[in-house]
């Protein structure tokens, strides 16, 4: 029986830069940062202090899991902005939107009302996009004439 999602992968272009972005700009905490052996794979994970059982592993595309051609393709997709990494939630979308924007996070959309909550959209420092959502209390609101 599957019990939940524990770790999800985000492909980043540079782990040092990503670590700085996810902690100092987004306010997540580092859970693990270790390298397996000399010159081995660096295992870097971050997560929200409020949600100890879910984390993101920030991986750089490359071997041995990926051949050089595939790694280059993934890097290109990330840099082009084609990949989305998921939805992050907040209990103060307007305050956090301002806070993150002031820290230099690139937003693609300011907070907008949606049937499921208030949603903004930003990119991480590599180019992955995230939805940033404050879920609507009381569930979906389908009474309004929703456009974009």
């Amino acid at each position, binding site marked *: 029986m599957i019990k939940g999602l524990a770790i999800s992968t985000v492909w980043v*272009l540079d782990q040092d830069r990503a670590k700085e972005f996810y902690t100092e700009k987004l306010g997540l905490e580092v859970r693990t940062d270790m390298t397996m052996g000399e010159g081995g794979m660096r295992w870097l994970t971050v997560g929200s202090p409020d949600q100890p059982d879910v984390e993101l592993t920030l991986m750089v595309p490359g071997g041995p899991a990926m051949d050089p051609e595939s790694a280059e393709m993934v890097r290109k997709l990330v840099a082009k902005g084609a990949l989305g990494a998921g939805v992050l939630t907040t209990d103060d979308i307007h305050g956090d939107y301002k806070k993150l924007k002031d820290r230099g996070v690139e937003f693609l959309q300011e907070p907008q009302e949606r049937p499921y909550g208030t949603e903004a959209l930003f990119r991480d420092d590599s180019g992955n996009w995230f939805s940033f959502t404050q879920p609507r209390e009381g569930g979906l609101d389908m009474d309004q004439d*929703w456009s*974009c």
Partner: protein
Amino acid sequence: MDKTRQLRLAKDAMDRDWADPGLDLDTVAAHAGYSRYHFIRAFKEAYGETPGQYLTHRRIERAEDLLRTANLSVTEICHLVGFSSVGTFSARFKTWTGLTPSEYRAKHVGRGAALIPGCYAMLWAGGFRSAPGAGKERNSGEAG
């Protein structure tokens, strides 16, 4: 990868500011830090269409969304998505979708995707596809 990142910033500017009728090629190119001529070529190489085509594509896609879901007139939608002329808007819309805005609405009304996270809808529709009904004539008048 820095060059790709610069181009992405320009694309993001169009995804963010598509409603602004004053969003022109120079403004968009400045986001990428490119000269306009070099920018058009580099953008097309990365995203498969010129910045002008991309912006039209984004505005038409937003118009489709409004036609499906919002109780607004075609003229209102035309201006909301950044076109200043209804004639140009309708012609471009037909080139992209194969239908006039009114025909499109009649066919798709009530089938809006408000429950799909808006960001997924916007990013899915951006950048990497050819519109049905878009032929060679798509290039005319949109070179930038």
